[in-house]
């Protein structure tokens, strides 16, 4: 049998690649791949074609001495260029957005200098209190505990949400910001948007299912005694997928806004 020449083999590979491209383009389009993904598949076909051409290429001429050194340096430059450019071709995010986010999250961070200042102020305040207490007459009797409407109002204030009037649109909007800031969408979808895998309950109707107190507990202390798994997420609950450190990260004000936002989802 006569061995086919390199060009004959290449021509045949080109024909196969074109046919393959047409099939892949048509099938991938029919089953719903977006156009960009289809182009990516075309890229694979081209890459595959080049690789198969290389497989049957003629043996390379040997190099030695200066020519070998030069060829190696050029080869390094080519790989370096390809790898570096490859990184630039993929979608890039704008670090300015993350910087803004970090600035928000850093609000609670205090420098040692600030800490010293705070401690000094506290010492001063405590000294004043000691002075006051040593000169003040006996304290009056404690005020009676609020009851009925007053108690409800007070409870509402603790959660940061006015009990009667309901949360303001501004508070709900801040809650959405908190939801985005802590990337709750990674596991808890709203309106179908979020992580591809079902990691946590969707929050589309959370406002109907939970009270403010329940939500607060579930976010700050997800594994507090008495807390049960949401139906369908028993495994995730058992594996403690929901982070248990938000009590150290999400402030009271942020929590009030977040709860107001989630409660508004009905």
């Amino acid at each position: 049998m006569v061995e086919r020449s390199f060009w004959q083999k290449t021509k045949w590979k080109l024909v196969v690649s074109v046919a393959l491209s047409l099939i892949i383009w048509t099938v991938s389009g029919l089953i719903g791949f977006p156009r960009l993904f289809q182009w990516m598949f075309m890229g694979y076909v081209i890459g595959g074609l080049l690789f198969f051409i290389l497989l049957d290429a003629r043996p390379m001429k040997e190099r030695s001495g200066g020519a070998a050194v030069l060829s190696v340096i050029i080869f390094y430059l080519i790989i370096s260029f390809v790898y570096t450019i490859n990184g630039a071709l993929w979608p890039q995010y704008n670090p300015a957005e993350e910087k803004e986010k970090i600035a928000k999250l850093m609000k609670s961070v205090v420098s040692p200098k600030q800490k010293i200042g705070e401690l000094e102020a506290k010492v001063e305040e405590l000294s004043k209190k000691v002075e006051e207490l040593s000169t003040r007459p006996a304290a009056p009797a404690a005020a009676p505990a609020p009851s009925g409407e007053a108690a409800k109002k007070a409870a509402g204030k603790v959660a940061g949400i006015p009990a009667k009037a309901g949360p303001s649109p501004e508070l709900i909007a801040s809650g959405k910001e908190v939801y985005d800031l802590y990337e709750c969408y990674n596991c808890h979808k709203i309106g179908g948007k979020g992580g591809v895998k079902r990691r946590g309950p969707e929050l589309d109707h959370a406002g109907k299912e939970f009270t403010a107190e329940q939500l607060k507990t579930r976010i700050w202390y997800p594994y507090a005694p008495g807390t049960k798994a949401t139906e369908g997420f028993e495994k995730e609950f058992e594996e403690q997928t929901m982070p248990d450190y938000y009590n150290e990260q999400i402030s009271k004000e942020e929590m009030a806004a977040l709860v107001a936002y989630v409660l508004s989802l009905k």
Partner: protein
Amino acid sequence: MIPLLLIPILAYAQMPELPPVELGIGNREVVWIVMQVHLLFAAFILGAPIFVVICEFIGMRTKDARYDRLAKEVTKVTSIAYSLTALFGGFAILVLVGLYPEVTSYMIRRFFPVVAIIYPLLFIGETVTLYSYWYTWDIWKEKKGRHLAVGILLNLFGLATMFAINAPTSFMNTPPRPLATATLWQAINNYTWMPLNLHRTVGNITFGGFITGLIAAYLYMASKKDEDKAFYDWMGFVGNLIGIAALIALPLMGYIYALEFYKYDASAGLYLMSDRLSMHWEINGVLTGATFLAGNFYIWLSMKRVEGANRFAPYVKAGFIIILICNAIWMTPRHFWPVMQVPEDLVARLELPPHLGFLALMPAKNTAAFLTVLVTLINYLLYRRALKTGKIIWGRIDFISQYVLIFLGFTSIWTMAFMGSVRSFARKYFHVYLYIKDTTPESYTPTLAFTTAMATLITWVFFILVSFAIWLALISGMQKKGKEG
């Protein structure tokens, strides 16, 4: 009594305030380069001795002198690389103390017994055994068992050193919770410590194998005699074989490592795999795919010189098609968008529809990785079968194979430089995840383009130094011999 509280505050206030040094070229970038170059050398000096002892053992058992020569030549380069590792390690500490004093001081205090006692002792042990191993090579020529024992001891010291220093590294990613009450052992044995140990051990063997392939390619090109060419051709083959053999286990080790991130904190795992670092995995896919393709291409080139091996060509080609398809699956992202949520108006254009979303999940990726590994194994089996019936002539391989070996060496270095930064970025804006926030202006995740440029720069720095070490240890000697001969 209250004024007593002021005493420590005043004492603290009397200390001269020295802010971190600002180099003006980016403190993070300086630490990034120095630490990564140190890590690359460390990977080499840990990976190469594992490789070397295996070769020496095979040489002893088979009485094939080539193995002993290979082991000796790699050890010669390793001893030069060892000095450079120590040099960059010292440099790294100075840079860290000057540029990030607070967190460095915290880490040293947190791991004091490890970094101030255990690590230096192990390092001394490794130094003594490495140089003993090298200098007793000829003295104990007839006492191979004894020499091999020193080599095994060297590897034990090397592994223990790596395990020790992996403790603070992994701690920064996954510190035990609650941290305040955590013991030293809990800080060491954190969620990702053992997975990192395993990942780095296997990664270092791969690295050692591919760097050996690189050394072989350099020396093959520099060889004038046929016998030298035959030897370095064979050495390149062995380097590639060990590199690929270890590479087969690497995806599994990486999977275990990533899984521990999810177990520790699902949001950290998501950040690493699906959010701001998701596009970095596309590059990882390119690199892994390229490495497997190149490794198998080398087997193909090796088979081509075996008489009668042509009959296996269609099977190997079919294997390449499978590898290409698997790589395409590996690299198919959930969306072409650098963060988790795609803007609503772009979803249809940039995101996989829900019924195809499974392609972006781990089961699909794992299947692709498994098939790639399987094809690689089958290719080696075919090669072994071809050898049973055909004869191989070393030194007659297609010259392009040397560029394949160089490519594998370069790509493995670049991958380590790149993925090392991904591990670091997984901490987000923390020095110690969730506990010590990075308050410097450079706490954000750099863009993918910037990271790849940094990986290239680091690879070049390492490559120039390693090439120098190879030239110093081997090529200059070879040239001298050539002139004398």
